[in-house]
């Protein structure tokens, strides 16, 4: 097998004492930075990127992979412990992860998240090892019509996960679409709803919205009735997942990995979409969907695996075609280019040592992530013992730094604040905010792809049905909507974050 011998070459290149040390250092520092609230993998990678510049290519790549996996995992830690997502892809993790923490099972949630990340990361690297050249082609098959179909499917899945009032959920989806339209229209170059402000000309910043809507509003809800007690009154029950937890999570992990990997391959997918769809799927296949939103471990295992696998899948178009699909993979591509490595169709043949070196370093990065993070779970759980009055100002300060660091624009802090207030009021009124976010993320791509498709198509909207992949996805979406209507648009009794927080 060519792949096996390639991989052996790769490990030969990678496995030196200094590289292993760098890997350890990278995954440690990556985790530490990624764990800070408001600082997800993208910010952590951007901050730590310059470190790798001074290293020789192979060492730089090894360290980069380690930082990357560390930061990916670290992003979910604050979701679970504090109900504050480190980034958009961890928003879903809050739902059940934080509920588990409130029940004293933070350790189990963190453990499952770490293990799920490991499983997903490893499976996607294995797929990358054997199928990279074949799968790379899929990315190319996804033109504008396929993207439209995928975005529609994503929105339909969101309908399934609305908790509480359906009408409120739908209003939130519409609002998400509306606010995503602020800024320059990519298709025409016209500005929309910017009112002459240069700060609005590229739209509202996703990170500022996530931190405001989910982080600041969470803090507001907590300080409202702050007590001298620690955040969680309940006892911490065990640091690690139990046997039942493993049994319950293995299915979601595998499904999440597969789903995330496929979504990661295509340009419109990516970790955010993957985590939301995975959650909707787990809820759909669960025997008792009512447990979701109340601390169901499947709701952590699935999305956490999915978002990691999505990034793994996203590495395939990067390495085999030089095409990044998400900001994180774009950053990784940039880092490789700075190291003098130009991924592309010929990369594997021209520089097998580097190609396989990168693949091998991803295996190692994943293993180190697990080795390092499982023992840290105990440490993170102790964080819950810190009094909230000490914790919250620090969390706010870090949120400010995190929001500011992505664009270096103070305006983003105002956006964060405004969404914090809005989020607080809407939580009180039992609005589910997750659909707003996914609509905000999907809408611009949906609009752009739809308009591109119509420009390209001689037969108007029929182009959606003339292309097999697009047609399949559209049919699936219609079936899902039909099923939902038959169920009478009744929301599932999922509870959701909002109900629980104020019980």
């Amino acid at each position, binding site marked *: 097998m060519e792949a096996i011998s390639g991989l052996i070459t790769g490990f030969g290149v990678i496995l030196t004492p200094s590289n292993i040390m760098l890997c350890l250092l990278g995954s440690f520092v990556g985790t530490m930075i990624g764990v800070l609230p408001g600082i997800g993998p993208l910010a952590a990678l951007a901050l730590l990127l310059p470190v790798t510049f001074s290293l020789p290519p192979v060492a730089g790549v090894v360290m980069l992979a380690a930082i990357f996996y560390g930061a990916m995992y670290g992003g979910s830690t604050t979701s679970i412990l504090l109900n504050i997502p480190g980034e958009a892809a961890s928003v879903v993790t809050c739902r059940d992860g934080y509920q588990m923490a409130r029940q004293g099972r933070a350790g189990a949630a963190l453990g499952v998240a770490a293990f799920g990340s490991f499983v997903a990361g490893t499976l996607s690297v294995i797929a990358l090892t054997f199928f990279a050249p074949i799968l790379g082609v899929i990315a190319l098959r996804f033109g504008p019509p396929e993207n439209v179909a995928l975005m529609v499917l994503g929105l339909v899945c969101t309908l399934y996960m609305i908790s509480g009032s359906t009408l409120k959920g*739908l*209003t939130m989806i*519409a609002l998400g679409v509306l606010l995503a339209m602020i800024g320059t229209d990519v298709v025409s170059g016209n500005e929309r709803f910017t009112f002459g402000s240069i700060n609005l000309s590229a739209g509202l910043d996703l990170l500022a919205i996530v931190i405001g809507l989910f982080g600041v509003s969470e803090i507001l809800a907590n300080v409202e009735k702050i007590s001298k007690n620690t955040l969680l009154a309940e006892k911490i029950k065990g640091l690690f997942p139990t046997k039942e937890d493993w049994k319950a999570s293995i299915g979601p992990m595998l499904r999440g990995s597969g789903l995330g990997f496929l979504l990661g391959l295509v340009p419109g997918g990516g970790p955010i979409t993957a985590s939301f769809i995975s959650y909707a799927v787990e809820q759909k296949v669960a025997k008792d969907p009512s447990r979701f939103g109340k601390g169901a471990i499947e709701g952590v295992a699935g999305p956490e695996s999915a978002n990691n696998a999505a990034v793994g899948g996203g590495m395939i178009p990067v390495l085999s075609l030089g095409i990044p699909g998400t900001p994180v993979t774009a950053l990784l591509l940039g880092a490789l280019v700075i190291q003098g490595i130009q991924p592309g169709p010929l990369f594997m043949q021209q520089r097998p040592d580097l190609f396989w070196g990168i693949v091998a370093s991803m295996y190692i990065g994943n293993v180190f992530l697990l080795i390092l993070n499982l023992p840290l779970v105990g440490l993170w759980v102790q964080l819950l013992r810190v009094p909230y009055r000490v914790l919250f*100002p620090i969390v706010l300060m870090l949120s400010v730094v995190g929001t500011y660091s992505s664009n270096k624009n103070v305006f983003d*802090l105002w956006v964060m604040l405004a969404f914090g207030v809005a989020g607080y009021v809407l939580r009180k009124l039992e609005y589910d905010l997750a659909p707003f976010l996914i609509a905000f993320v999907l809408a611009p791509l949906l609009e752009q792809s739809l308009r591109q498709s119509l420009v390209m198509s001689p037969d108007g909207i029929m182009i959606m049905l003339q292309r097999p992949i697009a047609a399949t996805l559209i049919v699936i979406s219609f079936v899902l909507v039909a099923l939902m209507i038959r169920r009478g648009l009744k929301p599932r009794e999922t509870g959701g974050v909002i109900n629980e927080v104020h019980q």
Partner: protein
Amino acid sequence: MIERLVNLTWVLVGAAAAVLSWRIGLTGPYGPDSGLFPFVAGILVCLGGVGLLLTKGHAVNGLEWPDRAGWRRIGGVLAGLAFMAASIPYLGFAAAGVITMLILLRTVEQSSWVSSILLAVISVAATLGLFGYLLDLQLPRGPWGF
């Protein structure tokens, strides 16, 4: 009351957005123009608001707003953040951060001055040290050079 106000906001925001998008133009030579998506979204937000206003079933039962002490704390957090955003360009991150922390600690928890100042200075210094020094993140500097 607040619930009705929020619903009314949806109606107004949705309607305003729909009007503005109508002016941008809904359709062009190839179908949708820049205005179509925001127009549809605006109409839906507006309809959502109308629906929520007219139906009773969606209102929250037993909605609890914070007591006076609660509002003071929330006000403290918002004032702190607003002060931070407003003053960063003039005072720099360090000074704005310390003052914000003091606002937060004094209004929210009413900690003693000594412990507030101590915690504020230490946490801001730690943040600056981590991001500004170790990670080379350029946080805004005040007129005094830090």
